[in-house]
């Protein structure tokens, strides 16, 4: 993100037909968004009872993030403000239902009906005032308050965000806390400027005893990984500091990403969906040297 798209134009203008298509046909972007979504879903820590859930994908764009939810068998409702992105989502025959909607206007769902929400690379857009009538603080408030309402008790929402600076981070976090959410920020690869990824992990309502994710308590640091999957290898371990005032602490141990096998599997999936995917070669999944 050399130049921040939010600085260029409002989202529904920035993501026009050309940009939406460009975005969705970049294999690099597809891969990044897929892995961010997988990570978000992991942090969502849904009960592993084998029953599909009803989830939201906020700022779903062309469906790259939602596809991860479908792959895990969940139903989802995606909302986005860009008609062009949604057009591509239709073209790609995503399985979620789509709504043309501005999250800054608040979400119109009945109370307590949604099992969880993810949002990948979208919420930072709310920090910008694109019209004279826009007040980021109010829009964030409308968004988080309405989200809180529609989530079922104990449900979580995970947002992968690109705040431009600490003010934006605080702005987003405060709005979430004011709406009643508890939670904090999880940082993956905190010391790599390229790979650093930030997730806001929020929980709603009274959580069951094993799942207390209360605000600013360090005892809770590990629960997100502890109480569910064993799938989390130490490799990609990240900071789990749910104290919102202190972000980074510990570093992950290795740099390796998802590995060749994961990439091959992913590429295969994309092929089956009829996407244009580069051939597999001996270079596939190799670590790149230098800049790119």
């Amino acid at each position, binding site marked *: 993100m050399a130049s921040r798209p939010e600085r260029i134009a409002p989202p529904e203008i920035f993501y026009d037909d050309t940009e939406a298509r460009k975005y969705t046909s970049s294999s690099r972007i597809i891969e990044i968004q897929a892995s961010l979504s997988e990570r978000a879903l992991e942090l969502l820590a849904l009960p592993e009872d084998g*029953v599909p859930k009803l989830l939201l994908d906020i700022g779903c764009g062309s469906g790259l993030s939602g596809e991860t939810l479908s792959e895990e068998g969940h139903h989802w409702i995606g909302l986005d*403000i860009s008609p062009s992105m949604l057009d591509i989502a239709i073209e790609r025959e995503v399985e979620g*239902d789509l*709504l*043309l909607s*501005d999250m800054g*206007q608040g979400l119109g*769902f009945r109370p307590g*009906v949604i099992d969880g929400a993810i949002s990948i690379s979208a919420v930072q857009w709310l920090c910008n005032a694109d019209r004279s009538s826009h007040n980021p603080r109010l829009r964030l408030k409308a968004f988080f308050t309405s989200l809180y309402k529609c989530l079922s008790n104990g449900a979580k929402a995970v947002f992968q965000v690109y705040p431009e600076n600490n003010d934006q981070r605080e702005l987003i976090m405060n709005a979430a806390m004011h709406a009643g959410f508890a939670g904090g920020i999880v940082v993956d690869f905190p010391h790599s400027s390229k790979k650093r990824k930030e997730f806001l992990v929020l929980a709603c309502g009274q959580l069951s005893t094993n799942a207390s994710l209360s605000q600013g308590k360090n005892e809770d640091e590990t629960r997100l990984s502890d109480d569910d999957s064993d799938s989390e290898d130490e490799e990609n371990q990240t900071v789990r500091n749910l104290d919102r005032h202190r972000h980074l602490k510990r570093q992950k141990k290795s740099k390796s990403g998802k590995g060749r096998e994961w990439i091959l599997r992913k590429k295969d999936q994309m092929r089956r969906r009829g996407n244009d995917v580069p051939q597999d070669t001996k270079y596939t999944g190799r670590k790149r040297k230098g800049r790119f």
Partner: protein
Amino acid sequence: MRLLTHNMLSSNIKGVVNGFPLRIEAEKVLEKNVEMNSDFLKKMFEKIEWKAFVEASRGMGYTELPEEADSSMLDSDEFLNRFHHALLELHLEEGALVCPETGRRFPVRKGIPNMLLHEDEV
């Protein structure tokens, strides 16, 4: 948009007290087969507003749902099949959703409801 989503949606216009259910104006409805998952249906049954669901399904031209339903019916395959079909296989492709309180129409094009509010509705 499927009725699953319709049943969760409500009108979000400023000042509206009861924005649920949005009335369906169907111009074009599509059917797409989806594999049935009875566990999901059972979970969803607890959340569905049945009356609104039945009404919506009629608006989409499907009239096989019972007026009333309780959880004991989830043991019946026939019921599950109908519930499944109405919930997940019917798609409102073209038409509109209408706010029950204000009559404001939210157009649906290519299966996507346009829920964007005008500035004076926020």
